[in-house]
């Protein structure tokens, strides 16, 4: 008997006829808990990224407010919230107001299916990962709306880039997810975590790399942060935003990073599974590891050009993802389940070979670009 059923029975005894409360109360509690978790973690992530990026660049990062500067994001938030809300005179005012909401809300909705523990999940959908893919794509609509409503050429260029980027990178991302689903035998997030006695990044390293790179593009992080390319289009889609609305974009960006860190941890790193520590700690630790890698990449790699970005998605990740998918399907079909380690070794060799082969496609230099 689940906790929900117990709660419903208990309600029926004290308040007959009010059983529907059993659905409303847990939903509200869940939303509040998730919102609290997301907002806290986003603040931690903002601080963590700025500090870590500073260390990667031999700087200190923010360190004045509070111990090690932990209150800096709060100060930043207060500053942003107190700013004047400027709306472009010739922009689409309704859309300009709506866009940050469309960006931020789906990010919160992703957390509904992130398993924080064995049964600590807000909604254990049997199509959990499909839900994640579907919901997270809605943010793009918000970004496009922001770019359009701003009545600004840079914002519009940024929005168009985003749409092109998302359409391109969604494909390898989903194909990599299909590999995981094949191996786990379920679309449900809890089932995927439960089937990872050996984390999937060992069993299918190529899928992990593809999913990670696709995620970087999906999050608009370096080296795929073309929509915010400061040196080309100033600030991209949120160039005309300030105050509360900008805060929503900011929150959405880091919330997205948090959500996808959690999802990578769930799909490939074994989710909440781990010894000694409580499950939620394991999920947070794994999400932090993923996020640290994202920051590490941001601190290292330069931004791609638009054509390189497209070529990387369509000529690089997509064929690799298809080969990876067929390979895993064949292994799941023909290899006995006891030979998981052989599967891992085969996939590792495959990953190394494919990455070497494909990297030859993307050589630069000699005054020309062979993409």
């Amino acid at each position, binding site marked *: 008997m689940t906790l929900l059923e117990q709660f419903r029975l208990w309600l029926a005894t004290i308040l007959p006829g009010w059983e529907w409360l059993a659905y409303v109360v847990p939903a509200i509690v869940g939303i509040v808990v998730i919102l609290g978790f997301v907002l806290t973690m986003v603040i931690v992530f903002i601080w963590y990224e700025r500090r870590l990026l500073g260390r990667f660049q031999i700087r200190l990062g923010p360190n004045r407010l509070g*111990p090690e500067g932990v209150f800096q994001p709060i100060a930043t938030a207060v500053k942003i919230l107190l700013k004047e809300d400027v709306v472009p005179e010739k922009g689409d005012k309704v859309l300009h107001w709506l866009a940050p909401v469309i960006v931020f809300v789906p990010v919160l909705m992703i957390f509904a299916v992130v398993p924080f523990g064995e049964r600590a999940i807000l909604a254990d959908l049997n199509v959990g990962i499909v839900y994640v893919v579907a919901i997270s794509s809605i943010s793009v609509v918000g970004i496009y709306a922001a770019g359009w409503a701003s009545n600004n050429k840079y914002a519009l260029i940024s929005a168009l880039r985003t749409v092109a980027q998302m359409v391109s990178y969604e494909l390898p991302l989903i194909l990599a997810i299909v590999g995981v689903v094949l191996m786990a035998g379920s679309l449900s997030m809890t089932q995927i975590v439960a089937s990872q006695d050996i984390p999937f990044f060992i069993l299918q390293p190529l899928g992990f790399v593809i999913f990670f790179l696709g995620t970087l593009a999906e999050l608009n992080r370096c080296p795929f942060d073309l929509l915010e390319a400061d040196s080309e289009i100033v600030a991209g889609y949120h160039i005309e935003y300030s105050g509360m609305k900008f805060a929503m974009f900011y929150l959405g960006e880091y919330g997205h990073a948090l959500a996808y860190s959690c999802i990578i941890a769930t799909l490939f790193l074994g989710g909440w599974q781990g010894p000694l520590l409580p499950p939620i700690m394991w999920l947070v630790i794994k999400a932090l590891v993923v996020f640290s890698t994202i920051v590490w990449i941001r601190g*290292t790699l330069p931004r791609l050009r638009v054509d390189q970005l497209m070529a990387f998605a369509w000529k690089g990740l997509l064929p690799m993802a298809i080969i990876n998918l067929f390979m895993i399907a064949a292994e799941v079909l023909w290899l006995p389940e006891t030979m998981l380690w052989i599967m891992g070794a085969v996939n590792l060799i495959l990953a190394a070979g494919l990455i070497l082969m494909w990297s*030859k496609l*993307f050589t630069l230099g000699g005054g020309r670009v062979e993409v």
Partner: protein
Amino acid sequence: MKFERYGIGIAKGMAITFKHLFRPPITVQYPEEKLVVSRRIRGNELVWFPDRCTGCATCAKSCPQGNIEIATHVGSENNYVVDKFELDAGRCMFCGLCVESCPYEALAMGVSYEQAQYRRGDLVWSKEELQPLNKRPSGYARPEIEAALPKQSLLIYGDKERDEGGQKLRLIPLSKKRGRGV
């Protein structure tokens, strides 16, 4: 097998940034931490030696801003006694013409560089404030002082090599004070 064309550059770059994590940050948190400045610095302060000053007011005449205010009266030994020697640092551009023009080497550029004040009135240096009590004259336009200073090419040098005129950046260890609030 050459890996130069197989994306090894990305791995190399990632390794370099990872190594940066273990280097001390090059940030100097200025008010709390200060780099050692060159002893050949020509700071933005002036040092006035009252015992050498004859009150001839050559410095006041040479000042492009007319910034030096000097008032004297005739003393017992038929000399000038300086009553007032005032200089507004807010208007001074530290061109050093007064130092160059002084026939008795009674004025010199100092070595300090932290002269900011909260009020404009505090920027006016009086006779007392200009005296070399805890100030050191720099080698600017004073060849004999300059000759005594160590030779060096960089502005920053470590404590150890201070006398040899070394050129190493001083590594500041991460102290407990670092990263705390103001």
